């Protein structure tokens, strides 16, 4: 075997691949070949590093050098300078946004300093398409120990004691779920992995499947052992081609090693996994809808009970867990429930993966201990708001969550505190908004999403959300009244109380939380017909400042609808009834006389 003295890790997550990281890998290999170094330096394509903002990422080990925004052409310089001469390529080093200094070691980056990686432990570290690297990192050891040294009840007890809660959004205790499923007797039981990640802006599950697929496979087998299931199914959206491919490769490798199949590791236990593809419907993240979709029926939820633990896939006891929940399982088995409880908070032990997006400097994937504050996430890990603008709100939990504002910045993040603050953990999307975002428009955006994604089975969700959306639209157009705000609040409460599944029960959250936290903005929209962020076009008015206007007629000539009138050398006027707010006049005016109100 070749003896490598250096490893070059190239990010092969979807984000970096879109920015041509595969080409970088190719070029690096070519350069190494050309310099006779392919025996001493190994190039490895890994899963997501999380620092997607500055992708593609290339990390050089063991000296921990972290290169950002690498281009395919840079491969030559990296090999010639760093690998051969040992000099770091300065211009590719990461620049700390607050200190404006170059950072050459990923340990000194604010982005990584506060993170603790459990679910993402192997992402950006191993080659996801090589089972040997996973095994080298204690992979399948947890499964081995469960089969050889523990009874199914022991396993469930560890998971129960660890206090692990479902990472898909609801936060239901995982151990309890397993226990329910284990108690029902049946000739066949199923383990399902929910990889139908549908929140706008969320990519936690995708990154885990792309970066460390074996951890999910191992955890599903452990779950199968503890509840008595021999079949596993991963319900994954067809929009995740790379995750699907890596999962398929991983399943195949596990079968070849006998880690899936019959008599796993010399025991009597048998387990295998198949994939089921979803068409990307948001409602199919709800477990009953997901099961129907897997059976080939319409992806519509049904009333619980019966819970899937009793009657799930083809009427058999089924345990459904989210990808991130599964990724935590092997570590908990290896390190114990007490260790897991020592991380995070009492009611929400462990860590949570978040996808940071929006108006923030370090967009990317992070994993932090529960109990961390929003301030730490946004200003330390996230590097603050883009362009030094003012922080306004952060949306957590996607279309089911709500907005948190400045007053929540120091609240510790855990399942229950977020619900108390009018939002929810959700699967971990976190969208940061600054002063340029209009909160009414944000609520409208999420409603648009739910209206589109509602399956239409129950009236409150099908009709109610549509009405909510219409009312918000009315307010954004400048036709809203105070009664409309009241209507929004009433209707929201009714929908929450009466909708059939989680989608409808949580869809009014963005409306309620924006009304609660940004009452002033709603009032401005209905009373003064004003949108302070300038997002709601219909509430903007183009006005000519008489002090600056010299009457050159340039604006009147360029206006496509003839909304500007005025004599030559006299102050002009814009007729708001005719104006279509195209902005042509502002561009034309040389005297800065036209402004938006």
């Amino acid at each position: 075997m070749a003896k490598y003295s250096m490893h070059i890790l190239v990010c092969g997550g979807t984000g970096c691949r879109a920015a041509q990281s595969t080409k970088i890998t190719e070029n690096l290999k070519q350069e190494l070949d050309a310099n006779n170094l392919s025996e001493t330096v190994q190039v490895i394509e890994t899963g997501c590093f999380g620092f997607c903002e500055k992708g593609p990422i290339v990390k050089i080990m063991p000296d921990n050098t972290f290169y950002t925004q690498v281009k395919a052409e840079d491969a030559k310089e990296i090999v010639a300078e760093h690998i051969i001469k040992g000099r770091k390529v300065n211009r590719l080093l990461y620049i700390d946004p607050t200190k404006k200094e170059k950072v050459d070691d990923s340990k000194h980056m604010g982005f990584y300093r506060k993170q603790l990686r459990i679910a993402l432990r192997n992402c950006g570290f191993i080659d996801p398409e090589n089972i040997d690297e996973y095994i080298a990192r204690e992979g399948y050891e947890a499964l081995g120990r469960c089969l050889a040294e523990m009874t199914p009840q022991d396993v469930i007890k560890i998971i129960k004691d660890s206090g692990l809660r479902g990472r898909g959004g609801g936060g239901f205790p995982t151990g309890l779920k397993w226990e329910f499923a284990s108690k029902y007797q049946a000739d066949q039981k199923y383990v399902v992995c929910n990889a139908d990640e549908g929140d706008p802006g969320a990519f936690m599950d995708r990154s885990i499947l792309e970066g460390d697929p074996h951890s999910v496979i191992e955890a599903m087998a452990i779950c199968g052992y503890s509840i008595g299931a021999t079949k596993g199914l991963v319900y994954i959206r067809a929009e995740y081609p790379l995750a699907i491919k890596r999962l398929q490769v991983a399943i195949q490798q596990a079968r070849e090693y006998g880690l899936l199949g019959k008599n796993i590791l010399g025991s009597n236990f048998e387990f295998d996994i198949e994939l089921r593809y979803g068409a990307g419907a948001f409602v199919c993240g709800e477990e009953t809808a997901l099961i129907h979709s897997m059976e080939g029926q319409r992806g519509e939820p049904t009333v619980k009970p019966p819970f899937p633990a009793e009657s799930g896939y083809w009427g058999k006891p089924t345990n459904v867990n989210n990808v991130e929940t599964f990724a935590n399982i092997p570590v908990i088995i290896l390190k114990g429930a007490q260790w897991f409880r020592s991380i995070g908070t009492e009611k929400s032990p462990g860590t949570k993966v978040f996808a940071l997006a929006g108006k923030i400097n370090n967009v990317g994937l992070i994993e932090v201990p529960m109990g961390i504050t929003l301030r730490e996430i946004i200003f330390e890990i996230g590097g603050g708001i883009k362009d030094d603008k003012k922080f306004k709100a952060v949306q957590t939990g996607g279309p089911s969550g709500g907005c948190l504002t400045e007053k929540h910045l120091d609240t510790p993040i855990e399942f229950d505190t977020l619900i108390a603050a009018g939002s929810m953990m959700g699967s971990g999307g976190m969208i940061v908004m600054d002063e340029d975002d209009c909160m009414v428009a944000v609520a409208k955006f999420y409603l648009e999403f739910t209206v589109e994604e509602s399956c239409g089975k129950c009236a409150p969700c099908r009709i109610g959300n549509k009405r909510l959306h219409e009312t918000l639209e009315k307010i954004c157009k400048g036709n809203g009244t105070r009664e409309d705000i009241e209507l929004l609040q009433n209707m929201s409460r009714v929908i929450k109380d009466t909708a059939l599944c989680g989608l409808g029960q949580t869809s009014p959250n963005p409306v309620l939380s924006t009304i609660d936290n940004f009452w002033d903005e709603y009032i401005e929209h209905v009373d003064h017909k004003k949108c302070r962020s300038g997002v709601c076009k219909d509430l903007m008015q183009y006005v000519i400042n008489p002090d600056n206007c010299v009457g050159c007629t340039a604006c009147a000539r360029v206006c496509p609808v003839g909304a500007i009138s005025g004599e030559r050398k006299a102050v002009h006027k814009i007729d708001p009834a005719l104006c279509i707010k195209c902005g042509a006049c502002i561009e034309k005016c040389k005297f800065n006389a036209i402004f938006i109100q």
Partner: protein
Amino acid sequence: MTKVKSLADLRKMKEELQNKVNLREKGDNVEKLIQIKVGMGTSGIASGAKEIFNFFIEELEKRNIEAVVTQTGDMGYNFAEPTVEVTVPGKDPIVFGNVTIQKADKIIECYIKNGELVEGILPENYDKIDNK
């Protein structure tokens, strides 16, 4: 591929496979490990730094010493190439000059294993900015 038949098999496999990734694991906690930096500027390489570099990597593993061997740029002691900087956790870094294979062997046996100094230590002639 052969099947993994038992937990013991799996553990054996893990031991064998570990060196595939332990270079990366070491990189994640360098401050707790012995670090060896070999100066590989043009003059270092011309004086044979590459052989010294490979010698350290191979020998440390053979002798079961956990250490991180990295190459670095020219250290400035061009009168005494090849130069090697050794940092034992908790101690100040020491730079050895005119390192040959024999001397590298001595560095491992005397300094790294027993903490005895070896002749050829170069006096530090500069301050590092991280001490300022």
